[in-house]
């Protein structure tokens, strides 16, 4: 089944006569670059010879900012990295801080965090689907997915008061307990949601044009994927069943049942299928969390000022919607982290774009940018 890299393009060789190569600046203000990604392309006709990504247009020095603020004040800064998946950023950061300080999170907080993270995963994947489809020319899924995404954001708003930059977790637990009726509304949304997913799949999964545009495009062999350190749905699309939630369970992921969907060929279509399947698994996790939700406090006992021990360092990674998002934090005995480095999944995954683009056409390039699911706020930080 696995097709060797570049095979689907070989039959185009006769199509384009040998001609002079042209350099094309793709972005940073291009509708399909999902922000301010700039690609220096060398093209031969429509065929891409070379891709050189240029990033940094959205660099805000987040890592320097982390060093300036106490641990709890950094949570809002993490919202602004992957701004379409703020909850998982928060979760990764507070997870790292808890590991550093030895805080133990109460079980109710763990379950609520899991629900928030899975809701965030669904909403991030919905946004990915919307933009991916609109890049490939299907306009309508964009509006359908946003319709459902709004309902998820409504749940976030009800819980923490914000829709996008959530700031919804604290080292040691959560700032609030769930509001009254939240679980019912969440359950209702989760009951409706698989039908909506079927709708998107009806529009795309079997559509021959969609398949033509995605099957066999941007094949990423598993060994190359690991070599590039790619994580998340892109890695699983290449057929490697590895998910931080299963491999190194955090929160209470070892107490719920879910599957890790994988692809076969590692092409764009497989990555699409993996993400669609992941949304269904997220629904499953949320429903289990709602069933098992324990009572109790949502915040651990902790000092008012969180101080890390002198000379302590941890790395904590979680499964974000885009891949493994991890924080490496060094403490030096002050309330601020001495050094706080982020492992941004978008940054690492984007690195493979030149590899994916080899021999692709311009039209494939937008599909490939879509399939890497990057958020420039996270790439540039």
């Amino acid at each position, binding site marked *: 089944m696995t097709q060797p890299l570049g095979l689907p393009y070989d039959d185009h060789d006769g199509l384009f006569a040998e001609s002079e190569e042209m350099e094309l600046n793709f972005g940073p203000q291009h509708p399909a670059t999902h922000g301010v990604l700039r690609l220096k392309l060398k093209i031969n006709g429509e065929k891409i010879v070379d891709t050189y990504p240029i990033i940094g247009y959205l660099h805000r020095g987040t890592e320097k900012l982390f060093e300036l*603020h106490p641990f709890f004040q950094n949570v*809002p*800064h993490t919202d602004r990295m992957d701004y379409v998946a703020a909850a998982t950023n928060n979760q990764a950061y507070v997870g790292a801080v808890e590991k550093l300080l030895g805080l133990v999170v109460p079980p109710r907080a763990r379950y609520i965090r899991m629900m928030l993270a899975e809701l965030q995963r669904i909403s991030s994947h919905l946004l990915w689907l919307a933009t991916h489809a609109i890049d490939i020319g299907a306009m309508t899924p964009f509006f359908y997915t946003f319709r459902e995404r709004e309902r998820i954001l409504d749940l976030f708003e009800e819980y923490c008061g914000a829709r996008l930059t959530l700031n919804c977790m604290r080292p040691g637990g959560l700032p609030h307990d769930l509001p009254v009726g939240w679980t019912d509304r969440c359950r209702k949304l989760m009951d409706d949601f698989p039908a909506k997913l079927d709708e998107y799949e009806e*529009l795309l999964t079997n559509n*021959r044009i969609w398949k033509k545009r995605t099957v066999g495009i941007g094949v990423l062999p598993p060994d190359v994927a690991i070599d590039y350190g790619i994580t998340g749905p892109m890695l699983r699309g290449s057929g490697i069943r590895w998910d931080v939630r299963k491999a190194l369970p955090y929160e209470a992921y070892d107490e719920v049942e879910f599957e890790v969907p994988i692809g076969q060929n590692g092409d764009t279509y497989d990555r699409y299928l993996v993400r669609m399947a992941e949304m269904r698994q997220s629904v499953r996790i949320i429903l289990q969390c709602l069933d098992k939700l324990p009572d109790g406090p949502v915040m651990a006992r902790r000092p008012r000022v969180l101080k890390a021990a002198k000379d302590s360092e941890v790395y904590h990674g979680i499964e974000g919607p885009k891949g493994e998002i991890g924080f490496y934090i060094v403490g030096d005995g002050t309330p601020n982290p001495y050094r706080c480095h982020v492992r941004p999944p978008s940054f690492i995954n984007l690195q493979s774009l030149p590899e994916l683009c080899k021999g692709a056409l311009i039209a494939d390039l937008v599909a490939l940018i879509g399939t890497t699911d990057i958020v420039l706020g996270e790439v540039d930080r």
Partner: protein
Amino acid sequence: MSAIKRFFGKIMLLDLFAGLGLTFRHLFREKVTVQYPEERWEPAHRFRGMFRLDEDRCIKCTLCARDCPIDIIYIDFHQEVNPETGKKDKVLDRFDIDVQRCMFCGLCEEGCPTEPKSIWLTTKTYELASYDRWKNLYVDMDQLQEWKVRPAYTDDEIA
């Protein structure tokens, strides 16, 4: 059998007609648009909107200013003898919030030690767009207390 079915499905363009059917059905489904100036979206109870301040409750501890990650709360106060009780009280001189840079994280509200909170973010106001930043988005003590709900846009403001 399934191969034959797939073949005929392909010939008859069934995959394309499935999508067409879905969009056609949506023609008659409920629309989700909110007609903004007439219809207004009601924020949830915990919505982090514009600030409010209750000067009487405030104990001038400046924790909100210290908890603010971007330092946009400016507080000045002085000590004054209260003529009724004869005790020294802190009196606020200045309580300014530079909403231009605010990211509505809500940490100031969380840091406030009074019960109920003397600064909170739940004014359910999201209409903060303005033509002059310094005039409308730099709020002082009086504005913070009076800011019940920002008045809705008038017609000439929309146009």
